[in-house]
């Protein structure tokens, strides 16, 4: 009877061990990307796809960005990884992230990415400076055209 009990216990222990889920915490192993609009608003809960350099035709992983617009993945090798964030409205990102070496992944990531809140440079000064730069270029183009035509004189009347 005792033998039978031992056999049953051994048989039950096998499957129980096989179904045990373990985990490993490795700080700095992953890569994080934040997607946001030009005014600093995050692309929150938007589908994303990550493609490995080894298999560019099939997503390595897919998911949704978090509420702050962050997505993260763990590259399994060096190379140019492709990250796509696709809003149903046709907005989004399609960018390449260079992963130098497995050991250098932490170095490739930003030194201290903010966990939440506005991205540096996205709002504030950049939000004002970028339209100003565009305005300057448009102003320059049209001023150059006006000056050029003034210098050459008006077109002869038909």
């Amino acid at each position: 009877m005792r033998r039978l009990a031992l056999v049953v216990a051994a048989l039950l222990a096998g499957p129980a061990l096989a179904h045990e889920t373990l985990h490993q915490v490795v700080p700095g192993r992953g890569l994080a990307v934040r997607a946001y609009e030009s005014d600093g608003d995050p692309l929150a809960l938007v589908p994303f796809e990550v493609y490995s350099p080894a298999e560019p035709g099939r997503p390595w992983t897919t998911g949704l960005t978090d509420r702050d617009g962050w997505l993260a993945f763990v590259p399994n090798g060096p190379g140019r990884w492709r990250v796509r964030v696709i809003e149903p409205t046709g907005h989004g990102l399609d960018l390449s992230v260079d992963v130098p070496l497995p050991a250098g992944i932490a170095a490739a990531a930003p030194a201290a990415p903010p966990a939440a809140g506005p991205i540096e440079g996205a709002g504030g000064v950049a939000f004002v400076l970028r339209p100003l730069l565009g305005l300057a270029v448009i102003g320059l183009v049209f001023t150059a055209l006006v000056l050029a035509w003034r210098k050459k004189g008006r077109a002869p009347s038909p």
Partner: protein
Amino acid sequence: MHLPDGFLSPQLSLPALAVAAPLAAWGARRHFGREAAESLPVLGTLTALAFVVQTIMIPVPGGTSTHLVGMTLLALLFGPLAAFTCEGLVLLLQALFFGAGGVTVLGVNALAMGLLGPLAGWLAWRLLRRLSERAALFVAGWLSTQVATLSVVAVLALQHRLDPLLFPVAPAVTLAAMMVPSLSVAGLVEGLYTVFAFSLVRRANLRGVEA
């Protein structure tokens, strides 16, 4: 509405560029040339204004945002080809300097936001202005936004059909995600902007403006 690089295959982006490039060249010759020198200051100012209004995000319930285009106004004042040429310049700057919209999809974006939308608005205005000018201006702005948005939806749906890997979102989802903000917010704001801006420009009686 600004499609980024990487969402459309060359099957769609190249024909669009092939159509847009000669049109833009024609538009530049006609509206930026010597014969149009008198209207260039106003055209430049309104292009700059359109550039600014396109950077201002208008929040839409549901967590997304939209923006004005401002090109219907140029179409009504100078013609749809002028609007297309100016929008091409705006989109080029946005793509090169700010990453708003892609370079490879410049043709698609310019044709949708610079030509098809403003052309529809211009036609509506021509048709309705005798009945009520203000209503015609509002409808022009509103319709322009809907046509531009629908054009982008159609291109994305076509891309989904050609290669879902490039744009995996189902056409019905894209249609709802784009048309709801367009019909409820963007079109109304564009309509109001067109009414007020057109009235202001006309009242100012600027040189080089015929409308």
